[in-house]
């Protein structure tokens, strides 16, 4: 068990477990948090999981975790593992099962005040119009050929079918398609699981939310992102559905052999990995890219459904009903990026599991209209409190391999939440606060209760104070559909 005294405080909000803590650690492990969040992390197994990540071959500088850290399997959620592409490894468990689980934010020219009186209608219409819930199929059926196109082209496939615009692609991380995707590396089983799920939300913490920009902190950047106080915006949070899970399952199993072949010793089999520069590593990367592309196409289709529903339900109330994509980003991914190590630009594979890329101004790969300010960093909170829009900074490049947190982070188990909170009462409480919520099941709703999450304001305050992402706007929920 990791204790508080095992950490050394490097600077305000930066705690480090030195390499000497365990003989199998190759680099130190860092936690970016305030004291209260550090104490909270001591409550589950997340810090042991963080230490485990520091044992992987080829890791550089330090592995780290964000203030929304919580227990996962393999690495903790909120974990970042930087590994050399030349001598390091890629680990499917360190990306996670829901490959490219991510979030997108759409803005409107509609004032939230205008839509609040009909929020019940809006949420009911979204609940009917956006397929959601446990294992739910959608209305898109993919042939084998179409599936391979989705896997290799991602969002561009969806746009080519009329589900969105070219501008959506400009404002999606990787333009909605990772390079190197090879659909031959994805199993028939994975394709079968994914064949009827494109354009579906899924269950768990996935949602579509209508929200209001409550406060703008940085006017210049908010202007660049097209955000203003009182504005209605829409969040979409989903991932790669059964397909991504099967890709991870397949490679976690297959790579068990690679670990023996390459003589890699692991403290946890879920951290199974292969050298990045090996046939096994390359195969996983090509399959992971396919699952990431599926997830981008999925959010593109979901956003399209949300646009249609809102256009319909708001007709007669507002004239300009266009929803424009601010940005779409991934929370679970491994990406090849260049970062300075010992003063030299070095190619690394950065695993982000429950963490967000937070590139600052001038970095490659940003949309032209955000290049001068930095990328939007979207932090969805729980359904009763708030979410944040932040902007990436140069500081993130120095401290966290260009990474920020991804959400509030859970603090209570699903089991405990279900025991403590009744879905029906929660729904009522939220409605008294002016938040309309619909979910597939009351138990599912209870598991996602605000009390099950950390204080998002506190989490965001840490990344803002550290300068790894700067606050731009706070956004509050008005209507939510949960899977």
């Amino acid at each position, binding site marked *: 068990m990791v204790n508080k005294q095992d950490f050394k405080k490097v600077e305000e909000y930066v705690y480090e477990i030195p390499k000497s803590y365990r003989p199998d650690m190759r680099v130190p492990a860092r936690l970016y948090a305030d004291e209260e969040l550090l104490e909270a992390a001591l409550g589950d197994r997340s810090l042991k999981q963080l230490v485990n990540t520091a044992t992987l071959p080829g890791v550089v500088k330090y592995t780290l975790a964000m203030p929304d850290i919580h227990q996962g399997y393999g690495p903790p959620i909120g974990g970042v593992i930087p590994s050399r592409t030349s001598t390091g490894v890629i680990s499917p468990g360190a990306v996670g099962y829901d490959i490219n689980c991510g979030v997108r934010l759409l803005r409107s020219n509609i004032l939230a005040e205008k839509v609040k009186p009909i929020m019940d209608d809006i949420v009911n219409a979204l609940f009917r119009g956006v397929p959601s819930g446990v294992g739910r199929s959608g209305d898109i059926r993919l042939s084998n050929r179409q599936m391979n196109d989705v896997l290799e082209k991602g969002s561009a496939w969806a746009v080519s079918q009329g589900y969105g615009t070219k501008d959506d692609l400009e404002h999606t991380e990787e333009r909605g398609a990772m390079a190197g995707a090879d659909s031959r590396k994805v199993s028939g089983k994975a394709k079968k699981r994914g064949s009827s799920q494109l354009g579906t939300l899924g269950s768990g913490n996935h949602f579509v939310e209508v929200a209001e920009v409550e406060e703008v902190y940085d006017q210049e950047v908010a202007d660049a992102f097209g955000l203003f106080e009182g504005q209605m915006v829409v969040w979409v949070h989903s991932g790669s559905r059964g397909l991504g899970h099967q890709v991870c399952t397949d490679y976690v199993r297959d790579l068990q052999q690679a670990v023996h072949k390459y003589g890699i010793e692991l403290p946890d089999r879920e951290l199974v990995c292969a050298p990045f520069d090996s046939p096994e590593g390359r195969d996983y990367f090509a399959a992971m890219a396919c699952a990431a592309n599926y997830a981008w196409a999925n959010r593109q289709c979901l956003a399209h459904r949300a646009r249609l529903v809102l256009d319909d339900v708001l007709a007669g109330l507002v004239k300009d009903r266009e929803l424009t994509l601010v940005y779409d980003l991934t929370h679970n991914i491994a990406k090849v990026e260049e970062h300075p190590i010992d003063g030299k630009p070095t190619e690394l594979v950065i695993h982000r599991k429950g963490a967000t890329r937070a590139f600052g101004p001038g970095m490659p790969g940003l949309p032209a209209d955000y290049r001068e300010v930095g990328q939007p960093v979207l932090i969805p909170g729980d359904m009763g409190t708030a979410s944040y829009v932040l902007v990436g900074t140069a500081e993130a490049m120095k401290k966290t391999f260009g990474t920020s947190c991804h959400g509030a982070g859970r603090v209570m188990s699903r*089991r405990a939440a279900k025991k403590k909170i009744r879905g029906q009462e929660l729904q009522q409480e939220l409605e008294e606060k002016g938040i309309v919520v619909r979910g597939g099941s009351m138990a599912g709703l209870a598991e996602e209760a605000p009390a099950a999450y950390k204080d998002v304001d506190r989490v965001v305050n840490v990344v803002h104070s550290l300068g790894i992402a700067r606050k731009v706007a706070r956004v509050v929920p008005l209507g939510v559909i949960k899977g």
Partner: protein
Amino acid sequence: MSKKFEEIEHTADLAIKAYGQGMRELFANAAYGMFALMAEPSLEEPACQREVSLEATDYEGLLVDWLNELIYLHEVEGETYSQFIIETLSPAKLKAHVTGGPTKSKTKAIKAATFHELKVVKTGSGYEATIVFDV
């Protein structure tokens, strides 16, 4: 009757501890526990039967494969299983016959069984295994 499984705490996901007097019973009870948390079969429809045949290099790997195979069948065939007969079991091989019905209601999407801290342990009264699921 002795306990087949229990749900244990996990912050973000779902975990169970499964028990069995022998290894075969442990495998059957782990599957039973997983489905008990996940979905209910319709008993009015004719029963569905599936044969499962898997190979791995150790019991832990085989247990994860077994549960993932059942998750896959549940998702793509729309079936929920309640009876698990393990016909052959060695560290390298599993053959099983499972029976269930079309899925009537789903309570929880379990999307994968993980290797996280997975151990099959011999106890005084048989075997036990803790399995963490991705939900």
